[in-house]
């Protein structure tokens, strides 16, 4: 599954909305039995330090915990791993168009089962998913970003 985009109202940043949405994504991945989630993370803070470091070094610093990136740091905290950088991923002033391919592997993926195409209405009616503190998510996130 590919994270097309995620975004959160600016007034609700830090209220756990991004985490709740990401949790929904994870649950979808389990339910439809996909290998994992892939997304292009927009490194939101890179533009501020691009005169000092390359995008590669910036991402290495984020992975090592030496820098905090509004998007990527939170995604790594949620279990995503960096695969590679994508130059000219999409038009984005904050990341200077860099994307970072990130992957979360579904621990419940069962290769003996075909991916489920449709989920039952009862799943959609499951209702509340999250209300914890935290971050954004994966996908092409805006104020969020992957």
């Amino acid at each position, binding site marked *: *599954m*590919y*994270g*097309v*985009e*995620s*975004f*959160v*109202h*600016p*007034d*609700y*940043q*830090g*209220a*756990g*909305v*991004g985490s*709740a*949405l*990401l*949790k*929904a*994504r994870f649950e*979808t991945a389990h*339910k*439809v039995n*996909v*290998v*994992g*989630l*892939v997304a*292009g993370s927009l490194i939101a803070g890179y533009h501020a330090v691009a005169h000092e470091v390359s995008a590669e070094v910036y991402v290495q610093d984020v992975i090592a915990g030496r820098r905090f990136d509004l998007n990527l740091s939170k995604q790594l905290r949620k279990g995503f791993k960096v*695969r*590679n950088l*994508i130059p*000219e*991923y*999409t038009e984005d002033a904050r990341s200077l168009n860099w*994307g970072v*391919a990130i*992957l979360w*592997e579904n621990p419940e993926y069962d290769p003996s089962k075909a*991916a489920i195409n*449709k*989920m039952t209405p009862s799943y*959609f009616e499951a*209702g*509340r*998913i*999250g*209300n*914890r*503190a935290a971050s954004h*998510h994966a*996908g*092409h996130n*805006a*104020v*969020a970003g992957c």
Partner: protein
Amino acid sequence: MIAQIHSNHESRHTDSIRVLPATHERSVELQQLAMLAYEVSPQLAARYWSTKMFRARNETFPEGQWMAVDTTTGKVIGYTSGMRFDFDRNAPLLETWERTTGYG
């Protein structure tokens, strides 16, 4: 007691946030939300986040479309979209967002 988290100088009742399937009937709200979140003009938001696009996403992969709603106001406050995607776990992903998603 309802937990509160301080955000942008305001307190939010996080227990009131629910994640529901995103339906294209809420596309106008989703478009407005995208405009705020991405800080783009209404014209650009209308072009990129059209009802037609939300409908297409729902028809293609409804399981991957979610929105967050503040139940105290009924406002849509978050959105996420996923799509089915065949990929090689051992190969780098190098395509642009536009090419991978077909422009959304």
